[in-house]
C-alpha cells in the first residue's frame, strides 16, 4: 500500500521512507507519540497531502482521490457546521460521499439511535457537547458503509462509557469485514482493540507486527514480585537459580531471568525462597515495547527519560508545520 513514502515540511521531515501494506479486513493501529508522523501518514493515505516521493495505492487505486467515496475518515482536526442541524449535517456528509437522498433520513436516525443521540437530531450542532459531536462525526465517517475506515485519534476527549461504545462500534465495523485503521498516542487503547500494530517514531516506521508477535518478541523475561511487608528480599531472590538480576522499582522486585530459564520454574523457585504476597509474569505493554525500541534496549535510566518524554509529548498539541 505504501512504498518508501517521504514527506517534508520545509526543513522538517515529517515522514521518512515508510513501507506499509494493510490487508483487507484487518484492524490496524498506528501508534506513536504526538508529532511522530501518524496524522501526516494518514493524510497522505487520504490524498489530503501528497508525498514528496514514494508510491501509494489505496483500495487498488493510485490514490484515495479516486476512491474517496469508499473511505470513511475521521480526521484528528475534526469539526461540524455549528449552525447546521445534526441530522442535516449527517445527510449532507453522506450526500457528499455520493449517497442517494432516498432512504438516507431513516439511516441517519438509525445511527443516531445506536449512539444514543436520537433526541438531538433536530438540534444545532453547536448545542452538542464535544463528546456528542465526536460521535456524530464518527457516524459521518461510517454512514456511507465504506470499505476502508480511517480514524485519527478517535478516542480523544471521550469519557470511559463512550470510549467503550466507540470501541464496540469499531469492532462491529471490523467484524463486518471492513478494513479499519486508527491512530492513537495512548498505547493501551491500541492494545485493547488492534490485531496489528504499526509504530511510528520520528517519521519512521519502527514496528509493524501483530500484537501477539510483538508480545513474544519483546518478552522482557521478567517476573514482578511483591514481598510480604514490602521488605527488601533482593539477596535471597538473586540466589534462586536462573535469576539474572533483581532491582526494586517502586517497591516491587523486578526479577530478570536468564535467557534459557523457564518462567514457571523460576516463579516456583522464588516462592520457595521468600514470603510472597503477589507474583506475576510481566507482560510487555506497547509502551514498554516502544521505549525498548526507541532506546535500543539500553540502560534503565534512558527508559525513564523516554517514558517522561513520551508522556510529556502526549500533552503537547501536534503541530504539522514548524
Amino acid at each position, binding site marked *: 500500500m505504501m512504498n518508501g513514502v517521504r514527506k517534508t515540511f520545509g526543513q522538517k521531515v515529517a515522514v521518512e521512507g515508510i513501507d506499509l501494506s494493510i490487508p483487507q479486513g484487518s484492524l490496524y493501529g498506528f501508534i506513536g507519540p504526538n508529532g511522530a508522523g501518524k496524522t501526516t501518514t494518514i493524510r497522505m493515505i487520504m490524498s*489530503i497531502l501528497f508525498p514528496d516521493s514514494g508510491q501509494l495505492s489505496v483500495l487498488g487505486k493510485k490514490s484515495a482521490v479516486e476512491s474517496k467515496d469508499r473511505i470513511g*475518515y475521521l480526521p484528528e482536526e475534526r469539526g461540524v*457546521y455549528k449552525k447546521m442541524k445534526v441530522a442535516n449535517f449527517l445527510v449532507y456528509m453522506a450526500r457528499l460521499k455520493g449517497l442517494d437522498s432516498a432512504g438516507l433520513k431513516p439511516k441517519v436516525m438509525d445511527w443516531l439511535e445506536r449512539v444514543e443521540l436520537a433526541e438531538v437530531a433536530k438540534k444545532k450542532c453547536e448545542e452538542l457537547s464535544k463528546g456528542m459531536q465526536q460521535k456524530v462525526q464518527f457516524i459521518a465517517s461510517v454512514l456511507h458503509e465504506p470499505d476502508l475506515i480511517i480514524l485519527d485519534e478517535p478516542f480523544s476527549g471521550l469519557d470511559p462509557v463512550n470510549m467503550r461504545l466507540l470501541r464496540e462500534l469499531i469492532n462491529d465495523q471490523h467484524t463486518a469485514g471492513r478494513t479499519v485503521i486508527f491512530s492513537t498516542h495512548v498505547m493501551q487503547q491500541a492494545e485493547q482493540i488492534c490485531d496489528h500494530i504499526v509504530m511510528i517514531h520520528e517519521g519512521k516506521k519502527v514496528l509493524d507486527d501483530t500484537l501477539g508477535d510483538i508480545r513474544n518478541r519483546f518478552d522482557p523475561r521478567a517476573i514482578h514480585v511483591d514481598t510480604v511487608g514490602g521488605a527488601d528480599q533482593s539477596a535471597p531472590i538473586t540466589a534462586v537459580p536462573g535469576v539474572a538480576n533483581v532491582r526494586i522499582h517502586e517497591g516491587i522486585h523486578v526479577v530478570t531471568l536468564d535467557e534459557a530459564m523457564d518462567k514457571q520454574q523460576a516463579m516456583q523457585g522464588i516462592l520457595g525462597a521468600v514470603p510472597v504476597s503477589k507474583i506475576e509474569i510481566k507482560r510487555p505493554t506497547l509502551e514498554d515495547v516502544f521505549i525498548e525500541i526507541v532506546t535500543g534496549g539500553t540502560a534503565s535510566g534512558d527508559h525513564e527519560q523516554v517514558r517522561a518524554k513520551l508522556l510529556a509529548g502526549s500533552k503537547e498539541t501536534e503541530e504539522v*508545520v514548524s
Partner: protein
Amino acid sequence: MNFTKIIRVAGREFASTAMTKGFIIGALVVPAVMAALIPLIAILSASAQPPADKGTIYVLDRSSEVFEDLSERLSPEMVRERWETRAMKASEFAKGMMGNAGGDQVESAMSFIKTPEFRIIPTAQDVDLEELKEEIRDQMASGAEPEDPMRKVLAVVEIDIDAAKIVNDSEGYGSYQAFFRPKLNEETVGEIESGIRWSIRERRYENAGLDRSQIAQLASIEERKSKEITEEGERNESSELATYLIPVASLILLIIATMTGGQYLLTTTIEEKSNRVVEVLLSATSPMELMTGKIVGQMGVGLSLLAVYNSVGIAALIAFNRLDMISGQTILLFFVFFLLAYFMLASMMAAIGSAVNDMREAQSLMTPVMMMMMIPYFFFMPVVRAPNSMLSTVSSFVPPISPFIMIMRVSSTDPPPTWQIAAVILVNIVGVVVFLWFAAKVFRVGLLMYGKPPNLRTLIKWIRMA
C-alpha cells in the same frame, strides 16, 4: 472534478448563506422597507415643519407708491391662493413622474406646510427705523409670545424713494432693504422678498407704460425636449442626471453584488477552517471541488441579490417611463461583468479565507483587496464624463478593476465600440483563470495550515509548494 459534489457543496453554501433570516432581512427586506419609508420620511419631515409665521411687517415706503401693491400681494387671501396653486402644481408634476400614488403623497406632504399670514403696516415717512428694529429685539428678549400673534413683528422693510421711478438719471433705479426677525421659516422670508420685488417691478412697468402680461409673453419661450440624432434615428437628449445615474447605479450595484458574495465566501471559508470541519469535508471532496463549489454557491448569492435589485431598478425605470435609458444588451453585459468581477474577487477571498485562522487575521490581507475595490469609485467621475478617454479605455483593460470600469462605460450614454467590449471580456476571462489558479494553490495548502498567519511571502511560498 466531480460535478455532483461541486453542486452539493454549492447548494449547501448557497442555502447556509441565502436561506438565513439575516440575509433575507439584510439584503432583501431592508431595501424594500427603505423604498417604502422614503416617502413616509418626506411626509414626516414636512409635518415636522415649524408652525407658520404670523405677524406684522412694517413698511417704510419712501417711494410712496409700492406699498399699495405690496399690501395686496401679501394679503392673507392672496398668499393662501398662491400656496395652494403651488401645491397643486407639485402634485401634478409628481403624478406625471410617479403615477397617482406619488402625486397624492406629494399633495399630502404639501398640505402640511402652513401658509404664513401677514399684517402689513405702513409707517410714517419720518419714522425712526431703529425704533422699529428695537421692537423686534424687545420681543425676542422677552421671549414671550405677544397676546395677539399678529402683533409679532416679522420684518421691517425700507423701500428707496427711487425704487420704482428714476429720480436721478445717473443712479438708475433704487432698491429696498429688509430686516428680518431671526429664525423665520425659509418660505416666509421668500414670500416676503418676492412680494416686495414683484410690487416694485409692477410699479416700474406701469411708470414706464409697459404691460406686465406683454413682458411675460415676450420673455417666455416654450420648452421642447431636445433630441439627439443617432444612427437609428432620434432620441431624447439624455439629461445630466440620467448620464450619471445609470453608470453610478450600475457601478454601485456591481460592487455590492460582488462584495456580498465575496465577503460571505471569506466568512464561510474561515468558519469552516476554524470549526475544523474542513478536513472532514476534504475526506469527501478534493480541495478544488470544495473551492469551486463554494465559489459557485456564493455566486448564486450574488446573482440573486443582483436579480432582485435589477428588477427593482427596471421596475423603477418603467414607472418613470424611462426604460429607454437602459438596453437589454447593457443588462446582459451587466451579468457578464458581474461574473468576471466576482470570480476574481472570490478567488482572492477564498485564498485569504483558507490562509488565515480567524477574521482578525484576515483584515491585514484584506486591506489591499479593499483598496483595490475603492479604485473604481475614484475613477467614477473621469470615466463617466469621458467614457472613451484614454484613461477610461486603458483602465477598463486592467483586471480586476476592469469589469467595474467597463460597466460604467457600457451603461453611459456614449458606450464603447463592440470590439472593445469583446476584448475586455476576453482579457478578463484570462484574468479569472489566472486568479483562480493562484487561489487554488493557496487554498490547497492553506486549508490545513493552522498557527501563525501567513504574510505575502509565505503565500508565495505556498503557491510554489502546491
